[in-house]
């Protein structure tokens, strides 16, 4: 019985010592960086979103909700819906490709794995412009991969695959793929490989074993990877405009138009804040869903074990 009491006495003391002078100094630097690179720009954006737009000119400091009032418009919500749909589908597609790929990667020999990871990391160094432009060439009729079908005699004329929804999703998937792999890789390589083998010994085909045993055990990484790719593709504005038809121009494309071409910074800022809010709440929702389902499993087992120990 004395152990918990001892613990309780130790904890506050440890907490006080926890913030030594040197640690405060160490913490200060990230805090400064955070405020310089995040809080200040974000604050500026928030302030500008309430400024008054001077039609045909600039904007003036003030407080007005005019820019936000422009959201009350079916067109805006259609764009928002399209944006979410595109980012959601791209992330889902990305995961569907990245999960089996990463699984295979963790089972490769060391030096093959390193080669693949280096190749993936080099994709990260490509800018969105280069990715968008390359895919628009690859999916075009004259220079694109469709010509392989002609060469194989499957089609008479190479299909034009860009611009269109498929092209946008392809581009966004390509953009998000390395991130998805990098998030999934540690979790999948830590997963006990004998789990999959055990399921196979019990009669599950490799595919079935993967779905039944591997996927449920990397659920957290799946959620993390989804959120990562979703947020990332949500912010993309060059790929939708390079590879998409106007119907696929996402909110970020419209924000860029407002900021760069219409010089309507208050409206652009308001849309950015709104998009940020929507994506943040989505992230929180998904995270909360993930946690609560996890908690449900643990809850269940706790209650049961309590009942059992009470019974025995």
């Amino acid at each position, binding site marked *: 019985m004395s152990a918990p009491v001892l613990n309780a006495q130790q904890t506050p003391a440890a907490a006080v010592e926890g913030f030594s002078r040197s640690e405060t100094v160490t913490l200060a630097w990230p805090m400064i960086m955070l405020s310089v690179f995040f809080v200040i720009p974000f604050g500026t954006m928030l302030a500008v979103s309430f400024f008054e737009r001077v039609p045909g000119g600039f904007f003036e400091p003030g407080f007005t909700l005019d820019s936000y009032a422009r959201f009350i418009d079916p067109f805006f919500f259609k764009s928002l819906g399209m944006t979410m749909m595109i980012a959601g589908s791209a992330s889902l597609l990305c995961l569907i490709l990245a999960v089996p790929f990463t699984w295979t990667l963790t089972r490769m020999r060391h030096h093959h794995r390193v080669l693949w990871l280096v190749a993936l990391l080099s994709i990260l160094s490509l800018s969105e412009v280069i990715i968008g432009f390359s895919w628009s060439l690859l999916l075009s009729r004259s220079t694109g991969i469709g010509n392989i079908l002609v060469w194989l005699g499957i089609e008479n004329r190479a299909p034009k695959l860009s611009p269109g929804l498929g092209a946008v999703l392809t581009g966004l998937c390509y953009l998000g793929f390395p991130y998805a792999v990098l998030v999934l890789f540690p979790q999948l390589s830590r997963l006990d490989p004998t789990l999959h083998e*055990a399921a196979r010994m*019990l009669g599950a085909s490799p595919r079935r074993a993967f779905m039944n045993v591997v996927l449920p055990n990397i659920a957290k990484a799946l959620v993390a990877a989804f959120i990562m790719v979703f947020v990332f593709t949500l912010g993309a504005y060059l790929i939708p405009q390079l590879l998409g038809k106007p119907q696929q121009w996402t909110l970020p494309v419209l924000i860029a138009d407002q900021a760069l071409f219409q010089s309507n910074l208050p409206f652009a800022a308001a849309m950015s804040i709104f998009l940020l809010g929507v994506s943040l709440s989505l992230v929180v929702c998904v995270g909360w869903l993930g946690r609560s389902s996890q908690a449900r499993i643990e809850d269940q087992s706790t209650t049961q074990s309590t009942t059992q120990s009470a019974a025995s």
Partner: protein
Amino acid sequence: MSLQIAGVGKDFGKQTALSDVTLDIAGGELICLLGPSGCGKTTLLRIIAGLESASRGSITLDGDDLMQQAAHQRNFGMVFQSLALFPHLSVEDNITYGLRLRKMPAAARRQRAAELLDMVRLPGVAKRAVSMLSGGQRQRVAIARALAIEPRIFLLDEPLSALDAGLREAMQIELRELQQRLGITTIVVTHDQREAMTVADRIAVMNGGTIHQMGSPIDVYRRPADKFVASFIGQTNLIPATWQDDRLIVRGSLFDPGQAARDNQHTSPDSHETWLSIRPEELIVLDNNAASPPGATILEATVRFIRDVGASIEAHLELPANDNQPAQSLVALVSRDKVQHLHSGDTTRIQLTADCTVVLET
């Protein structure tokens, strides 16, 4: 179900992990694959399970070619070293996973899970999460899960290595009882020779990708085929000796190893070095006063150290160096009443007899 393994080998790149293993396992038999780590025993088990492909050779089960079947088609039960219990499923769902794949109705599955848990003496934990179980309990769940599918062959890869010593011995006995009750053909991989001696009908002692000796536990212990087996199974004293045609010379003395050993030598009569293996409990230490039996081979030794290990006394002896050979340490287990006269530093005598000495073939 009898299993025939013929000429099975496995190469990883240029390295040979397993070279041409041949092994027949009778129905209902429990075989231990015993050897140090890296000896190929786990590779062999995984090939039998279908988790690894063989580079050559064949495996048949009652004449049924297993090489044509994937792991999930073989209907073999396997217990992994890590146990590999599914963390996201309850105990019951773990046990009935294989039954669900076989489309057994839910009620029947629950019934079966309860029976299996009773069988492994773990009633009432069906709904628990596996993370709530102790090591021994997980062990039992893993065994129940593997047996739930009524496997044709039961495979265990170092199943008890995660348990502490006391629990491990109890589980060994339980496992053996269970196996005999079910009469299921079983293969256990282990590096623990005591475990192998406890559970196995026959032991295959493996090293360097080959089977060195295959035999009953007592056979392997009493009649080790070679130096590796003799030293890996239990404790032994290895004394170098020399065949000169059909005469065996041990540290300058002539020694008659018995008819069987001489017959063996007659098949290839030449002169070569060999080893004598004498188990500590079979090493005969003569009384100081006793006269040497006539014609017996007697070696002089110095007592270095005496240790009381409870049931008997362990004496550490040393054969002194001579012109040809360096000094050699020996260990003898002697009964308490015979040992009053032994003191550190004394000189004493040991007697070699054909009964208690094994001449190793290599």
